[in-house]
């Protein structure tokens, strides 16, 4: 890798009680890349996302975003620096409209301050117009524009995932972490979501790190794939390399060892 990394995870550890969720994990993400983060159930992928996005603090190791040492920083500080995430289970505000959900995610809205709201109504109105325009533009991108004035609570599970994705883009982030964007999304909508991810990178140069269990999808869109198992990074490479990697195959399918060959204990 020649370009300096946008995200650099270095020897990071995180335990929950006696369970080592992330164990000495290191990897880099190049700017403008789409990187897949895969691994079997319980590999530590979501914990890794929580560590990167500031929802958890690593016990050891460092995380740097754009050269800035960011481990231990709260999520909003990271969002301000240009790193945002989505959640596996979408967190939309069901009793607000789709458009309002989007606008709420816009940054630095002067109307949020009481003084400004009282004394600078025009500036606020202008800003709100900008935010609204951006929200509408993004809703067009994710093809939810026809539902802009519907309550988010009326959206299907798949549409909520799209909204969650769109909302993450409101801050015009440099990097987005997507936690299983395709899970529970109907096949046609899922394909559409993949196109949005590719389009986002193509038009805005956004760097994307994505956790995904749909292997066809992750292998199709990723430039590189990082594989975790039992908290550790066990492989990293091009999708085609990863699909042939014996350690990765073993992580997913188990060891080829036959039952009855190891020492039996107890009964």
């Amino acid at each position: 890798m020649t370009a300096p990394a946008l995200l650099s995870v270095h020897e990071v550890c995180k335990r929950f009680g006696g369970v080592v969720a992330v164990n000495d994990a290191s990897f880099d993400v190049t700017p403008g890349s789409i990187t897949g983060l895969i691994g079997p159930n319980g590999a530590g992928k979501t914990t890794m996302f929580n560590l990167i996005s500031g929802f958890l603090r690593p016990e050891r190791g460092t995380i740097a975003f754009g050269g800035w040492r960011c481990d231990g920083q709260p999520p909003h500080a990271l969002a301000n620096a240009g790193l945002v995430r989505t959640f596996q289970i979408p967190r939309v505000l069901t009793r607000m409209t789709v458009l309002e959900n989007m606008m709420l995610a816009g940054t630095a809205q002067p109307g949020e301050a009481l003084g400004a709201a009282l004394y600078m109504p025009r500036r606020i109105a202008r800003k709100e117009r900008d935010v609204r325009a951006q929200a509408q533009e993004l809703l067009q991108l994710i093809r939810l524009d026809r539902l802009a004035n519907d309550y988010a609570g009326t959206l299907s599970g798949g549409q909520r995932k799209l909204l969650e994705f769109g909302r993450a883009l409101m801050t015009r982030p440099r990097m987005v972490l997507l936690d299983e964007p395709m899970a529970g999304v109907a096949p046609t909508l899922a394909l559409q979501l993949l196109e949005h991810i590719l389009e986002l990178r193509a038009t805005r140069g956004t760097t994307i790190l994505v956790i995904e269990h749909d292997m066809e999808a992750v292998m199709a869109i990723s430039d590189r794939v990082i594989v975790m198992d039992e908290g550790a990074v066990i492989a990293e490479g091009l999708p085609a390399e990863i699909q042939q990697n014996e350690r990765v195959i073993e992580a997913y399918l188990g060891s080829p060892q036959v039952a009855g060959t190891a020492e039996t204990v107890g009964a």
Partner: protein
Amino acid sequence: MSAPSDPILSVRGLVAGYSDENVLHGVSLDVPRGAIVAVIGPNGCGKSTLLKTIYGLVRARGGEVVYHDGQEIEQRLDGLRPHAVTRLGVNMVPQLANVFPELSVRENLMVGADVAGGRFGDRLERVLRTFPALEPALPKRAATLSGGQRQMLGLGRALIADPHLLILDEPSAGLAPAVVDEVFTKVKAINGEGVSILMVEQKARQCLALADYGYVLDMGRNRIEGTGQQLLADQEVIAAYLGSRGRLDLARRQRGE
């Protein structure tokens, strides 16, 4: 595919799911009498739903599940509740909540034996022959057992009803490698006593090494099947887990992009 001549269980075109979403889109399989049959596949492919539907925990929305008890009687299982399925000689060990933690090991086994009738003592003896480690644990609360012992109790509780067919949902889940091996050894031993076995596993390779026949599910459909040895050597099985290049590109091209 050539159907086995004497299946104990035949599943044809099974459709099932939750609320307005189907998880199984027409799954078919056979369990030959006396065989171990493995069902494997990536996360979310419908393995557990398949077992739950066969056992009556999830209602079948289409297709059929036929149980052949070996005496010329065919019985449709779809539409039956789990206790009725158990009475017919099909028992299941779920992945989670497979023991009553607040009951003693003995009481857990009594609950298991209850549906089958007969003398508990005789039944207990048979289970303890297969699981001698349960004997000293009989008065203990099940909550105090280790993960491995708990799985053994789950198996013992299912076995005590004298099933002809045992359905196992990831018996190795969450167990240490040595204990996994022990569980698989027990499964083999139970099968050796003439009990047919249908099992779902994450540890695909170990499970296939044990199985006479295996099915690979993908997104709620049959994808590949073959003997355990055939599947162990099949690259397509790996592709089911790690994806195959080009399949999605093809989908995109078909849509004219």
